[in-house]
Protein backbone atom coordinates (compact mmCIF):
# COMPACT_ATOMS: atom_id res chain seq x y z
CA UNK A 1 0.00 0.00 0.00
CA UNK A 2 1.22 3.49 -0.75
CA UNK A 3 0.24 6.75 0.87
CA UNK A 4 -2.98 7.00 -1.13
CA UNK A 5 -4.23 3.50 -0.37
CA UNK A 6 -2.94 3.26 3.19
CA UNK A 7 -6.45 3.96 4.53
CA UNK A 8 -7.43 0.46 3.40
CA UNK A 9 -5.73 -0.99 6.46
CA UNK A 10 -8.82 -0.02 8.44
CA UNK A 11 -11.10 -2.06 6.18
CA UNK A 12 -11.98 -5.74 5.93
CA UNK A 13 -11.24 -5.80 2.20
CA UNK A 14 -12.46 -9.37 1.79
CA UNK A 15 -15.98 -8.28 2.75
CA UNK A 16 -16.20 -5.69 -0.04
CA UNK A 17 -18.17 -4.74 -2.05
CA UNK A 18 -20.66 -3.22 0.39
CA UNK A 19 -24.36 -4.08 0.06
CA UNK A 20 -25.31 -0.47 -0.68
CA UNK A 21 -27.21 0.40 -3.87
CA UNK A 22 -25.38 1.73 -6.96
CA UNK A 23 -25.03 5.50 -6.56
CA UNK A 24 -25.30 5.47 -2.75
CA UNK A 25 -23.17 8.05 -0.95
CA UNK A 26 -22.43 5.88 2.08
CA UNK A 27 -19.29 4.37 0.54
CA UNK A 28 -17.87 7.87 0.06
CA UNK A 29 -18.32 8.65 3.75
CA UNK A 30 -16.95 5.24 4.77
CA UNK A 31 -13.80 5.83 2.70
CA UNK A 32 -13.38 9.34 4.05
CA UNK A 33 -13.66 8.10 7.65
CA UNK A 34 -10.86 5.60 6.93
CA UNK A 35 -8.75 8.36 5.36
CA UNK A 36 -9.25 10.48 8.47
CA UNK A 37 -8.29 7.51 10.67
CA UNK A 38 -5.20 7.01 8.51
CA UNK A 39 -4.14 10.62 8.54
CA UNK A 40 -4.37 10.71 12.34
CA UNK A 41 -2.78 7.25 12.42
CA UNK A 42 -5.40 6.02 14.90
CA UNK A 43 -4.12 2.79 16.46
CA UNK A 44 -6.26 -0.24 15.65
CA UNK A 45 -5.49 -1.36 19.13
CA UNK A 46 -7.28 1.60 20.63
CA UNK A 47 -10.18 2.24 18.27
CA UNK A 48 -13.63 0.63 18.26
CA UNK A 49 -16.68 1.25 16.10
CA UNK A 50 -20.32 1.15 17.20
CA UNK A 51 -23.18 1.11 14.75
CA UNK A 52 -26.94 1.31 14.97
CA UNK A 53 -29.52 0.01 12.52
CA UNK A 54 -30.20 1.02 8.92
CA UNK A 55 -28.09 1.36 5.78
CA UNK A 56 -25.45 3.45 7.58
CA UNK A 57 -25.50 0.99 10.46
CA UNK A 58 -23.98 -1.60 8.17
CA UNK A 59 -20.73 0.41 8.09
CA UNK A 60 -19.20 -1.05 11.25
CA UNK A 61 -18.97 -4.50 9.69
CA UNK A 62 -16.54 -3.26 7.02
CA UNK A 63 -13.94 -1.96 9.45
CA UNK A 64 -11.08 -4.16 10.58
CA UNK A 65 -11.75 -2.93 14.11
CA UNK A 66 -13.49 -4.35 17.17
CA UNK A 67 -17.12 -3.39 16.86
CA UNK A 68 -20.61 -3.66 18.35
CA UNK A 69 -23.85 -3.86 16.40
CA UNK A 70 -26.49 -2.35 18.66
CA UNK A 71 -30.26 -2.10 18.72
CA UNK A 72 -32.00 0.59 16.65
CA UNK A 73 -31.24 4.01 18.11
CA UNK A 74 -29.01 2.78 20.94
CA UNK A 75 -25.56 3.22 19.40
CA UNK A 76 -24.73 6.33 21.46
CA UNK A 77 -25.46 4.93 24.97
CA UNK A 78 -23.69 1.67 24.05
CA UNK A 79 -20.66 3.71 22.91
CA UNK A 80 -20.77 5.68 26.16
CA UNK A 81 -20.84 2.40 28.11
CA UNK A 82 -17.69 1.29 26.28
CA UNK A 83 -15.97 4.61 26.98
CA UNK A 84 -16.83 4.46 30.70
CA UNK A 85 -15.44 0.92 30.88
CA UNK A 86 -12.26 1.69 28.92
CA UNK A 87 -11.32 5.35 28.69
CA UNK A 88 -8.24 4.55 26.58
CA UNK A 89 -10.36 3.53 23.57
CA UNK A 90 -11.32 5.91 20.75
CA UNK A 91 -15.02 5.17 20.41
CA UNK A 92 -16.63 6.06 17.08
CA UNK A 93 -20.35 5.77 16.37
CA UNK A 94 -21.37 5.46 12.72
CA UNK A 95 -25.06 5.51 11.95
CA UNK A 96 -27.84 7.26 10.08
CA UNK A 97 -30.10 10.22 10.77
CA UNK A 98 -33.14 8.03 11.50
CA UNK A 99 -31.17 6.00 14.04
CA UNK A 100 -29.37 8.91 15.73
CA UNK A 101 -31.91 11.72 15.51
CA UNK A 102 -35.21 9.82 15.32
CA UNK A 103 -35.46 6.75 17.55
CA UNK A 104 -32.17 7.64 19.28
CA UNK A 105 -32.81 11.38 19.58
CA UNK A 106 -33.22 11.40 23.34
CA UNK A 107 -29.88 9.64 23.80
CA UNK A 108 -28.20 12.25 21.56
CA UNK A 109 -29.64 15.08 23.62
CA UNK A 110 -28.28 13.63 26.85
CA UNK A 111 -24.91 12.58 25.44
CA UNK A 112 -24.52 16.26 24.55
CA UNK A 113 -25.29 17.20 28.17
CA UNK A 114 -22.81 14.63 29.47
CA UNK A 115 -20.25 15.69 26.83
CA UNK A 116 -18.91 12.13 26.74
CA UNK A 117 -15.61 11.95 24.87
CA UNK A 118 -16.82 9.97 21.83
CA UNK A 119 -17.28 10.81 18.13
CA UNK A 120 -20.51 10.34 16.19
CA UNK A 121 -20.58 10.35 12.39
CA UNK A 122 -24.09 10.67 11.03
CA UNK A 123 -24.91 9.73 7.43
CA UNK A 124 -27.75 12.19 6.89
CA UNK A 125 -29.53 11.13 3.69
CA UNK A 126 -32.93 12.66 4.48
CA UNK A 127 -34.73 9.31 4.19
CA UNK A 128 -35.28 5.84 5.75
CA UNK A 129 -33.59 4.13 2.82
CA UNK A 130 -33.30 0.52 3.96
CA UNK A 131 -37.04 0.22 4.45
CA UNK A 132 -37.86 1.70 1.05
CA UNK A 133 -37.99 5.47 1.50
CA UNK A 134 -40.02 6.80 4.43
CA UNK A 135 -39.78 10.31 5.88
CA UNK A 136 -36.82 10.79 8.26
CA UNK A 137 -35.83 13.47 10.81
CA UNK A 138 -33.73 15.33 8.20
CA UNK A 139 -36.28 15.21 5.36
CA UNK A 140 -36.93 18.81 4.22
CA UNK A 141 -40.37 20.34 4.74
CA UNK A 142 -42.70 19.56 1.86
CA UNK A 143 -40.78 16.55 0.49
CA UNK A 144 -42.89 13.64 -0.73
CA UNK A 145 -41.87 10.24 0.59
CA UNK A 146 -43.64 6.85 0.88
CA UNK A 147 -45.17 7.95 4.20
CA UNK A 148 -45.67 11.63 3.36
CA UNK A 149 -47.59 11.34 0.06
CA UNK A 150 -48.76 14.94 0.42
CA UNK A 151 -45.35 16.27 1.39
CA UNK A 152 -43.56 16.34 4.75
CA UNK A 153 -45.55 18.51 7.17
CA UNK A 154 -42.72 18.70 9.76
CA UNK A 155 -39.57 20.77 9.94
CA UNK A 156 -36.26 18.88 9.61
CA UNK A 157 -34.22 18.58 12.83
CA UNK A 158 -31.89 21.54 13.36
CA UNK A 159 -29.11 19.51 14.93
CA UNK A 160 -26.59 22.35 15.28
CA UNK A 161 -28.84 24.18 17.72
CA UNK A 162 -28.58 21.24 20.15
CA UNK A 163 -24.80 21.50 20.16
CA UNK A 164 -24.23 25.22 20.10
CA UNK A 165 -24.90 25.91 23.74
CA UNK A 166 -23.35 22.80 25.25
CA UNK A 167 -19.66 23.12 24.45
CA UNK A 168 -19.69 20.17 22.08
CA UNK A 169 -18.31 19.82 18.56
CA UNK A 170 -20.67 19.93 15.58
CA UNK A 171 -19.81 19.93 11.89
CA UNK A 172 -21.95 19.70 8.78
CA UNK A 173 -20.44 18.53 5.53
CA UNK A 174 -21.44 16.68 2.34
CA UNK A 175 -20.37 13.75 0.22
CA UNK A 176 -19.28 16.21 -2.46
CA UNK A 177 -16.87 18.20 -0.25
CA UNK A 178 -14.40 15.37 0.37
CA UNK A 179 -11.51 17.35 1.82
CA UNK A 180 -13.89 19.31 4.00
CA UNK A 181 -15.48 16.08 5.24
CA UNK A 182 -12.09 14.62 6.09
CA UNK A 183 -11.14 17.75 7.99
CA UNK A 184 -14.41 17.71 9.93
CA UNK A 185 -13.97 14.05 10.88
CA UNK A 186 -10.33 14.54 11.91
CA UNK A 187 -11.16 17.52 14.10
CA UNK A 188 -14.07 15.61 15.61
CA UNK A 189 -11.82 12.65 16.44
CA UNK A 190 -9.28 14.95 18.08
CA UNK A 191 -11.89 16.87 20.06
CA UNK A 192 -11.85 16.10 23.78
CA UNK A 193 -15.55 15.81 24.37
CA UNK A 194 -18.67 14.88 22.47
CA UNK A 195 -18.30 15.45 18.72
CA UNK A 196 -20.82 15.04 15.93
CA UNK A 197 -20.34 15.17 12.17
CA UNK A 198 -23.49 15.41 10.08
CA UNK A 199 -22.44 14.17 6.64
CA UNK A 200 -25.07 14.91 4.03
CA UNK A 201 -25.10 11.96 1.65
CA UNK A 202 -27.31 10.92 -1.21
CA UNK A 203 -29.82 8.12 -1.51
CA UNK A 204 -30.70 7.98 -5.20
CA UNK A 205 -32.66 4.71 -5.22
CA UNK A 206 -35.17 5.38 -2.44
CA UNK A 207 -35.24 9.18 -2.40
CA UNK A 208 -33.43 11.08 -5.15
CA UNK A 209 -35.13 9.44 -8.14
CA UNK A 210 -38.56 10.28 -6.66
CA UNK A 211 -37.43 13.90 -6.29
CA UNK A 212 -36.56 14.06 -10.00
CA UNK A 213 -32.79 13.47 -9.96
CA UNK A 214 -31.66 11.39 -12.93
CA UNK A 215 -28.66 9.89 -11.13
CA UNK A 216 -26.63 10.29 -7.97
CA UNK A 217 -24.08 12.48 -9.72
CA UNK A 218 -26.83 15.09 -10.12
CA UNK A 219 -27.38 14.94 -6.38
CA UNK A 220 -23.67 15.45 -5.75
CA UNK A 221 -23.66 18.45 -8.09
CA UNK A 222 -26.61 19.84 -6.16
CA UNK A 223 -24.47 19.70 -2.98
CA UNK A 224 -21.71 21.49 -4.87
CA UNK A 225 -23.97 24.29 -6.04
CA UNK A 226 -26.18 24.62 -2.97
CA UNK A 227 -23.73 24.51 -0.07
CA UNK A 228 -21.13 27.14 0.79
CA UNK A 229 -18.33 26.41 3.26
CA UNK A 230 -18.41 28.58 6.38
CA UNK A 231 -16.08 27.05 8.97
CA UNK A 232 -15.96 28.22 12.62
CA UNK A 233 -19.08 30.30 12.24
CA UNK A 234 -21.41 31.05 15.15
CA UNK A 235 -24.23 29.43 13.26
CA UNK A 236 -24.67 27.71 9.89
CA UNK A 237 -27.35 28.89 7.49
CA UNK A 238 -29.45 26.28 5.69
CA UNK A 239 -27.18 26.43 2.64
CA UNK A 240 -23.93 26.37 4.58
CA UNK A 241 -21.63 23.60 5.69
CA UNK A 242 -18.92 24.05 8.28
CA UNK A 243 -17.68 23.52 11.77
CA UNK A 244 -19.14 24.89 14.98
CA UNK A 245 -16.62 24.26 17.64
CA UNK A 246 -16.97 25.12 21.25
CA UNK A 247 -14.26 27.24 22.82
CA UNK A 248 -14.11 25.06 25.90
CA UNK A 249 -13.20 21.43 25.49
CA UNK A 250 -14.52 19.41 28.39
CA UNK A 251 -14.18 15.68 28.06
CA UNK A 252 -16.65 14.24 30.53
CA UNK A 253 -15.39 11.39 32.66
CA UNK A 254 -17.76 10.04 35.31
CA UNK A 255 -14.89 9.11 37.64
CA UNK A 256 -11.38 7.79 37.32
CA UNK A 257 -11.37 4.22 36.05
CA UNK A 258 -7.71 3.59 36.91
Amino acid at each position, binding site marked *: MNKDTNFKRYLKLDLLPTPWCPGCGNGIVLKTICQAFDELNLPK*NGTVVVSGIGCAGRSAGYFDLDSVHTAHG*RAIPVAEGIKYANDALNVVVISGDGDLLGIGGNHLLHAIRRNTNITVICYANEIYGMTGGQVSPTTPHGTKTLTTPNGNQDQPADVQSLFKHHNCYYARTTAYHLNHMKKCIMEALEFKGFSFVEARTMCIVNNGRRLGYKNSNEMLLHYKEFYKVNDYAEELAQNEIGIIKSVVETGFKPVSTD
Partner: protein
Amino acid sequence: MKDRLPGGISIMKQLLTGNEAAAEAAIQAGCRYYYGYPITPQNELINYMSTRMPEVGGAFIQAESEIAAISMVHGSAAAGGRAMTSSSSPGISLKQEGISYLAGSELPCVIVNIQRGGPGLGDISASQADYFQAVKGGGHGDYHTIVLAPCSVQEMADLVYDAFDLADKYRNPVIILGDAQVGQLMEPVEFHKKPKKNLPAKSWALTGAEGRKKNVIKSFYPVKGQLEEFNAHLQRKYRTIEEHEVRYEAINIHKADVILVAYGTSARICKEVVKKSQQYKFKVGMVRPVTLWPFPKEIIRKVSERVECILTVEMSAGQMVEDVKLAVEGRCPVHFYGRTGGGVPTSLEIIRKIVEIVPDNRAANTLLQLAAVK
Protein backbone atom coordinates in the same frame (compact mmCIF):
# COMPACT_ATOMS: atom_id res chain seq x y z
CA MET B 1 -9.80 -8.20 65.94
CA LYS B 2 -12.55 -10.55 66.97
CA ASP B 3 -15.20 -10.71 64.29
CA ARG B 4 -17.83 -12.34 66.48
CA LEU B 5 -19.68 -11.11 69.56
CA PRO B 6 -20.64 -13.45 72.40
CA GLY B 7 -23.37 -15.71 71.12
CA GLY B 8 -21.73 -16.00 67.74
CA ILE B 9 -23.20 -12.82 66.27
CA SER B 10 -20.95 -11.48 63.56
CA ILE B 11 -19.84 -7.88 63.97
CA MET B 12 -19.55 -7.69 60.22
CA LYS B 13 -23.31 -7.57 59.93
CA GLN B 14 -24.95 -4.39 58.65
CA LEU B 15 -28.57 -3.40 58.75
CA LEU B 16 -29.52 -2.65 55.14
CA THR B 17 -32.50 -2.73 52.82
CA GLY B 18 -32.57 -5.43 50.17
CA ASN B 19 -31.94 -2.78 47.53
CA GLU B 20 -28.83 -1.48 49.30
CA ALA B 21 -27.60 -5.03 49.90
CA ALA B 22 -27.91 -5.75 46.18
CA ALA B 23 -25.84 -2.64 45.41
CA GLU B 24 -23.12 -3.39 47.96
CA ALA B 25 -22.89 -7.04 46.90
CA ALA B 26 -22.48 -5.93 43.28
CA ILE B 27 -19.61 -3.62 44.25
CA GLN B 28 -17.94 -6.39 46.23
CA ALA B 29 -18.43 -8.80 43.32
CA GLY B 30 -16.34 -6.45 41.18
CA CYS B 31 -19.13 -4.58 39.39
CA ARG B 32 -17.65 -1.22 38.36
CA TYR B 33 -20.27 -0.01 35.89
CA TYR B 34 -23.77 0.79 37.09
CA TYR B 35 -26.39 2.64 35.06
CA GLY B 36 -29.82 3.35 36.49
CA TYR B 37 -32.98 5.39 36.27
CA PRO B 38 -35.19 6.29 39.24
CA ILE B 39 -38.31 4.22 39.85
CA THR B 40 -40.02 3.18 43.06
CA PRO B 41 -39.53 0.69 44.78
CA GLN B 42 -35.86 0.28 43.74
CA ASN B 43 -34.63 3.84 44.48
CA GLU B 44 -32.44 2.81 47.44
CA LEU B 45 -30.31 0.86 44.98
CA ILE B 46 -29.54 3.71 42.57
CA ASN B 47 -29.12 6.14 45.49
CA TYR B 48 -26.62 3.83 47.19
CA MET B 49 -24.68 3.31 43.96
CA SER B 50 -24.35 7.05 43.35
CA THR B 51 -22.15 7.46 46.44
CA ARG B 52 -20.57 4.00 46.64
CA MET B 53 -19.50 3.54 43.00
CA PRO B 54 -17.17 6.58 42.87
CA GLU B 55 -15.53 5.39 46.12
CA VAL B 56 -14.25 2.31 44.29
CA GLY B 57 -13.37 4.18 41.09
CA GLY B 58 -16.28 2.85 39.09
CA ALA B 59 -18.74 4.56 36.75
CA PHE B 60 -22.18 5.63 37.93
CA ILE B 61 -24.59 7.26 35.49
CA GLN B 62 -28.19 8.20 36.05
CA ALA B 63 -29.21 7.66 32.44
CA GLU B 64 -31.91 9.55 30.53
CA SER B 65 -34.11 6.44 30.41
CA GLU B 66 -34.18 2.75 31.26
CA ILE B 67 -33.40 2.08 27.60
CA ALA B 68 -30.26 4.22 27.78
CA ALA B 69 -29.21 2.47 31.02
CA ILE B 70 -29.47 -1.05 29.58
CA SER B 71 -27.67 0.16 26.42
CA MET B 72 -24.80 1.51 28.55
CA VAL B 73 -24.67 -1.89 30.26
CA HIS B 74 -24.44 -3.36 26.75
CA GLY B 75 -21.41 -1.16 26.03
CA SER B 76 -19.56 -1.78 29.29
CA ALA B 77 -20.22 -5.53 29.09
CA ALA B 78 -18.92 -5.51 25.49
CA ALA B 79 -15.75 -3.84 26.75
CA GLY B 80 -15.32 -6.71 29.23
CA GLY B 81 -16.51 -5.03 32.44
CA ARG B 82 -18.90 -6.27 35.11
CA ALA B 83 -21.97 -4.12 34.54
CA MET B 84 -25.37 -3.85 36.20
CA THR B 85 -28.64 -1.97 35.95
CA SER B 86 -31.75 -2.08 38.10
CA SER B 87 -35.37 -1.03 37.84
CA SER B 88 -38.91 -2.02 38.69
CA SER B 89 -41.61 -3.57 36.52
CA PRO B 90 -42.56 -0.73 34.09
CA GLY B 91 -38.87 0.14 33.71
CA ILE B 92 -37.97 -3.51 33.10
CA SER B 93 -40.50 -3.57 30.25
CA LEU B 94 -38.49 -0.75 28.65
CA LYS B 95 -35.27 -2.70 29.15
CA GLN B 96 -36.59 -5.79 27.37
CA GLU B 97 -35.28 -4.56 24.01
CA GLY B 98 -31.77 -4.36 25.41
CA ILE B 99 -32.07 -7.65 27.30
CA SER B 100 -32.95 -9.49 24.08
CA TYR B 101 -29.91 -7.91 22.36
CA LEU B 102 -27.65 -8.76 25.31
CA ALA B 103 -28.85 -12.38 25.25
CA GLY B 104 -28.43 -12.51 21.46
CA SER B 105 -24.95 -10.96 21.70
CA GLU B 106 -24.06 -13.34 24.59
CA LEU B 107 -23.01 -10.53 26.90
CA PRO B 108 -22.78 -11.09 30.67
CA CYS B 109 -24.58 -8.58 32.90
CA VAL B 110 -26.89 -8.39 35.90
CA ILE B 111 -30.36 -6.81 35.85
CA VAL B 112 -32.26 -6.32 39.11
CA ASN B 113 -36.08 -6.17 38.95
CA ILE B 114 -37.73 -5.07 42.19
CA GLN B 115 -41.25 -5.95 41.09
CA ARG B 116 -44.26 -3.72 41.68
CA GLY B 117 -47.90 -4.19 40.78
CA GLY B 118 -49.07 -4.12 37.16
CA PRO B 119 -50.20 -4.09 34.40
CA GLY B 120 -49.37 -0.59 33.20
CA LEU B 121 -48.34 1.83 35.88
CA GLY B 122 -50.02 -0.44 38.44
CA ASP B 123 -48.92 0.56 41.91
CA ILE B 124 -45.70 0.68 43.89
CA SER B 125 -46.36 -2.19 46.29
CA ALA B 126 -44.94 -5.70 46.15
CA SER B 127 -45.94 -8.04 43.36
CA GLN B 128 -44.73 -11.17 41.59
CA ALA B 129 -46.51 -10.51 38.33
CA ASP B 130 -43.36 -10.26 36.17
CA TYR B 131 -42.62 -14.00 36.45
CA PHE B 132 -43.59 -14.78 32.86
CA GLN B 133 -41.63 -11.78 31.56
CA ALA B 134 -38.50 -12.86 33.44
CA VAL B 135 -38.48 -16.63 32.87
CA LYS B 136 -40.08 -16.97 29.46
CA GLY B 137 -37.85 -14.46 27.73
CA GLY B 138 -39.62 -11.12 27.97
CA GLY B 139 -38.11 -9.68 24.83
CA HIS B 140 -38.30 -11.08 21.31
CA GLY B 141 -36.62 -14.26 20.09
CA ASP B 142 -35.70 -17.67 21.52
CA TYR B 143 -33.64 -16.82 24.56
CA HIS B 144 -33.45 -17.29 28.30
CA THR B 145 -32.00 -15.25 31.11
CA ILE B 146 -30.93 -16.95 34.32
CA VAL B 147 -33.46 -15.78 36.97
CA LEU B 148 -32.61 -15.74 40.68
CA ALA B 149 -35.29 -15.03 43.31
CA PRO B 150 -34.10 -13.93 46.78
CA CYS B 151 -36.47 -14.08 49.76
CA SER B 152 -34.35 -12.19 52.31
CA VAL B 153 -31.82 -9.36 52.41
CA GLN B 154 -28.97 -11.81 53.06
CA GLU B 155 -30.05 -13.94 50.13
CA MET B 156 -30.28 -10.82 47.96
CA ALA B 157 -26.60 -10.13 48.67
CA ASP B 158 -25.56 -13.75 48.14
CA LEU B 159 -27.46 -14.11 44.87
CA VAL B 160 -26.09 -10.86 43.44
CA TYR B 161 -22.54 -12.19 43.99
CA ASP B 162 -23.49 -15.43 42.27
CA ALA B 163 -25.31 -13.58 39.49
CA PHE B 164 -22.08 -11.95 38.28
CA ASP B 165 -20.24 -15.29 38.33
CA LEU B 166 -23.05 -17.08 36.49
CA ALA B 167 -23.25 -14.27 33.93
CA ASP B 168 -19.51 -14.49 33.22
CA LYS B 169 -19.48 -18.28 33.28
CA TYR B 170 -22.21 -18.61 30.64
CA ARG B 171 -21.91 -15.25 28.83
CA ASN B 172 -25.56 -14.63 29.62
CA PRO B 173 -27.66 -11.91 31.29
CA VAL B 174 -28.84 -12.77 34.80
CA ILE B 175 -32.00 -11.28 36.32
CA ILE B 176 -32.48 -10.86 40.07
CA LEU B 177 -36.26 -11.07 40.51
CA GLY B 178 -37.14 -9.41 43.81
CA ASP B 179 -40.23 -7.50 44.85
CA ALA B 180 -41.00 -4.33 46.81
CA GLN B 181 -40.96 -6.27 50.11
CA VAL B 182 -37.59 -7.92 49.57
CA GLY B 183 -36.17 -4.69 48.13
CA GLN B 184 -37.29 -2.37 50.92
CA LEU B 185 -37.31 -4.41 54.10
CA MET B 186 -34.27 -4.01 56.36
CA GLU B 187 -32.47 -7.04 57.76
CA PRO B 188 -28.96 -7.77 59.03
CA VAL B 189 -26.71 -8.77 56.19
CA GLU B 190 -23.12 -9.90 55.93
CA PHE B 191 -20.94 -9.66 52.84
CA HIS B 192 -18.68 -12.65 52.93
CA LYS B 193 -18.57 -14.18 49.48
CA LYS B 194 -15.59 -13.87 47.20
CA PRO B 195 -15.99 -13.73 43.43
CA LYS B 196 -15.34 -17.10 41.84
CA LYS B 197 -11.99 -17.80 40.29
CA ASN B 198 -11.37 -19.87 37.14
CA LEU B 199 -14.03 -18.06 35.16
CA PRO B 200 -13.42 -18.09 31.39
CA ALA B 201 -11.24 -15.23 30.07
CA LYS B 202 -13.14 -12.59 28.09
CA SER B 203 -11.18 -13.01 24.86
CA TRP B 204 -14.26 -11.86 22.94
CA ALA B 205 -14.29 -8.37 24.52
CA LEU B 206 -13.57 -5.11 22.72
CA THR B 207 -9.98 -4.22 23.50
CA GLY B 208 -8.60 -3.17 20.11
CA ALA B 209 -8.01 -5.36 17.06
CA GLU B 210 -4.24 -5.01 16.62
CA GLY B 211 -2.51 -8.29 15.77
CA ARG B 212 -5.59 -10.48 16.09
CA LYS B 213 -8.89 -11.12 14.35
CA LYS B 214 -11.34 -8.35 15.12
CA ASN B 215 -13.97 -9.00 17.79
CA VAL B 216 -17.51 -8.28 16.73
CA ILE B 217 -20.32 -8.14 19.31
CA LYS B 218 -23.55 -8.70 17.42
CA SER B 219 -26.86 -10.48 17.35
CA PHE B 220 -27.30 -10.12 13.59
CA TYR B 221 -26.92 -13.15 11.29
CA PRO B 222 -28.26 -12.18 7.86
CA VAL B 223 -26.76 -15.12 5.91
CA LYS B 224 -29.24 -17.97 5.58
CA GLY B 225 -28.49 -20.79 7.99
CA GLN B 226 -26.17 -18.78 10.27
CA LEU B 227 -28.90 -17.71 12.67
CA GLU B 228 -30.30 -21.22 13.00
CA GLU B 229 -26.82 -22.48 13.78
CA PHE B 230 -26.30 -19.73 16.35
CA ASN B 231 -29.69 -20.41 17.95
CA ALA B 232 -28.83 -24.11 18.23
CA HIS B 233 -25.66 -23.07 20.07
CA LEU B 234 -27.74 -20.90 22.44
CA GLN B 235 -30.12 -23.79 23.10
CA ARG B 236 -27.21 -26.13 23.89
CA LYS B 237 -25.95 -23.53 26.36
CA TYR B 238 -29.40 -23.29 27.98
CA ARG B 239 -29.55 -27.11 28.36
CA THR B 240 -26.16 -27.01 30.12
CA ILE B 241 -27.44 -24.31 32.47
CA GLU B 242 -30.59 -26.36 33.19
CA GLU B 243 -28.40 -29.36 33.97
CA HIS B 244 -26.01 -27.60 36.36
CA GLU B 245 -27.51 -24.48 37.87
CA VAL B 246 -30.91 -25.44 39.34
CA ARG B 247 -31.28 -24.23 42.94
CA TYR B 248 -34.09 -24.62 45.42
CA GLU B 249 -34.79 -24.95 49.11
CA ALA B 250 -36.80 -27.99 50.23
CA ILE B 251 -38.42 -27.99 53.68
CA ASN B 252 -40.04 -31.08 55.24
CA ILE B 253 -40.81 -32.60 51.89
CA HIS B 254 -40.37 -36.20 53.03
CA LYS B 255 -43.21 -36.38 55.55
CA ALA B 256 -45.49 -33.87 53.87
CA ASP B 257 -49.10 -34.49 52.87
CA VAL B 258 -49.32 -31.23 50.97
CA ILE B 259 -46.43 -29.35 49.33
CA LEU B 260 -46.42 -25.58 48.95
CA VAL B 261 -44.45 -24.08 46.07
CA ALA B 262 -43.58 -20.39 46.43
CA TYR B 263 -40.63 -18.01 45.92
CA GLY B 264 -39.55 -14.63 47.26
CA THR B 265 -41.90 -12.87 49.67
CA SER B 266 -44.68 -15.48 49.22
CA ALA B 267 -42.20 -18.14 50.30
CA ARG B 268 -41.52 -16.34 53.59
CA ILE B 269 -45.23 -16.58 54.45
CA CYS B 270 -45.48 -20.20 53.31
CA LYS B 271 -42.53 -21.04 55.56
CA GLU B 272 -44.61 -19.90 58.53
CA VAL B 273 -47.42 -22.28 57.54
CA VAL B 274 -44.93 -25.14 57.21
CA LYS B 275 -43.52 -24.36 60.64
CA LYS B 276 -46.95 -24.26 62.28
CA SER B 277 -47.92 -27.61 60.77
CA GLN B 278 -45.00 -29.51 62.27
CA GLN B 279 -46.70 -30.10 65.63
CA TYR B 280 -49.74 -31.77 64.00
CA LYS B 281 -50.31 -35.04 62.21
CA PHE B 282 -51.16 -33.42 58.92
CA LYS B 283 -47.91 -32.11 57.51
CA VAL B 284 -47.22 -29.31 55.09
CA GLY B 285 -43.89 -29.22 53.24
CA MET B 286 -42.46 -26.72 50.83
CA VAL B 287 -40.29 -26.33 47.75
CA ARG B 288 -38.91 -22.82 47.29
CA PRO B 289 -37.37 -22.28 43.83
CA VAL B 290 -34.27 -20.08 44.10
CA THR B 291 -33.62 -20.27 40.37
CA LEU B 292 -36.87 -19.53 38.55
CA TRP B 293 -35.05 -20.28 35.32
CA PRO B 294 -33.77 -22.92 35.23
CA PHE B 295 -36.89 -24.09 37.09
CA PRO B 296 -36.46 -26.86 39.70
CA LYS B 297 -38.83 -29.20 37.91
CA GLU B 298 -37.08 -32.43 38.92
CA ILE B 299 -37.69 -32.01 42.68
CA ILE B 300 -41.28 -30.92 42.07
CA ARG B 301 -41.86 -33.98 39.88
CA LYS B 302 -40.41 -36.19 42.64
CA VAL B 303 -42.58 -34.81 45.45
CA SER B 304 -45.68 -34.93 43.24
CA GLU B 305 -45.40 -38.73 43.21
CA ARG B 306 -46.15 -39.06 46.93
CA VAL B 307 -48.19 -36.06 48.14
CA GLU B 308 -51.95 -35.57 48.08
CA CYS B 309 -51.66 -32.31 46.22
CA ILE B 310 -49.49 -29.25 45.56
CA LEU B 311 -50.47 -25.65 46.30
CA THR B 312 -48.65 -22.85 44.49
CA VAL B 313 -48.75 -19.49 46.26
CA GLU B 314 -47.87 -16.31 44.37
CA MET B 315 -48.44 -12.58 44.45
CA SER B 316 -49.85 -12.80 40.94
CA ALA B 317 -52.93 -14.12 39.18
CA GLY B 318 -51.14 -17.44 38.60
CA GLN B 319 -47.91 -17.55 36.61
CA MET B 320 -45.36 -19.91 38.21
CA VAL B 321 -48.21 -22.39 38.73
CA GLU B 322 -47.99 -23.16 34.99
CA ASP B 323 -44.38 -24.31 35.37
CA VAL B 324 -45.35 -26.35 38.44
CA LYS B 325 -48.05 -28.09 36.38
CA LEU B 326 -45.56 -28.76 33.59
CA ALA B 327 -43.23 -30.38 36.13
CA VAL B 328 -45.99 -32.41 37.80
CA GLU B 329 -47.45 -33.64 34.50
CA GLY B 330 -50.73 -34.67 36.12
CA ARG B 331 -49.22 -36.89 38.85
CA CYS B 332 -51.19 -35.02 41.51
CA PRO B 333 -53.61 -32.09 41.60
CA VAL B 334 -51.93 -28.65 41.46
CA HIS B 335 -53.84 -25.80 43.11
CA PHE B 336 -53.21 -22.08 43.17
CA TYR B 337 -53.66 -19.28 45.66
CA GLY B 338 -52.66 -15.76 44.72
CA ARG B 339 -53.17 -12.10 45.52
CA THR B 340 -52.50 -9.25 43.08
CA GLY B 341 -52.23 -5.47 43.08
CA GLY B 342 -50.20 -5.18 46.25
CA GLY B 343 -52.09 -7.89 48.12
CA VAL B 344 -49.84 -10.19 50.13
CA PRO B 345 -51.21 -13.63 51.12
CA THR B 346 -51.45 -14.22 54.88
CA SER B 347 -50.69 -17.55 56.51
CA LEU B 348 -54.34 -17.82 57.55
CA GLU B 349 -55.48 -17.40 53.95
CA ILE B 350 -53.06 -20.11 52.87
CA ILE B 351 -54.29 -22.49 55.59
CA ARG B 352 -57.93 -21.89 54.59
CA LYS B 353 -56.98 -22.67 51.01
CA ILE B 354 -55.36 -25.94 52.12
CA VAL B 355 -58.56 -26.89 54.01
CA GLU B 356 -60.52 -26.18 50.85
CA ILE B 357 -58.36 -28.33 48.57
CA VAL B 358 -57.89 -31.32 50.95
CA PRO B 359 -61.36 -32.92 51.36
CA ASP B 360 -60.27 -34.93 54.38
CA ASN B 361 -61.71 -34.51 57.87
CA ARG B 362 -58.43 -35.38 59.50
CA ALA B 363 -56.68 -32.67 57.57
CA ALA B 364 -59.46 -30.19 58.01
CA ASN B 365 -59.60 -30.66 61.75
CA THR B 366 -55.85 -30.34 62.14
CA LEU B 367 -55.69 -27.35 59.90
CA LEU B 368 -58.51 -25.54 61.58
CA GLN B 369 -56.64 -26.03 64.82
CA LEU B 370 -53.62 -24.67 63.07
CA ALA B 371 -55.47 -21.66 61.87
CA ALA B 372 -56.41 -20.89 65.44
CA VAL B 373 -52.73 -20.70 66.40
CA LYS B 374 -51.78 -17.09 66.27
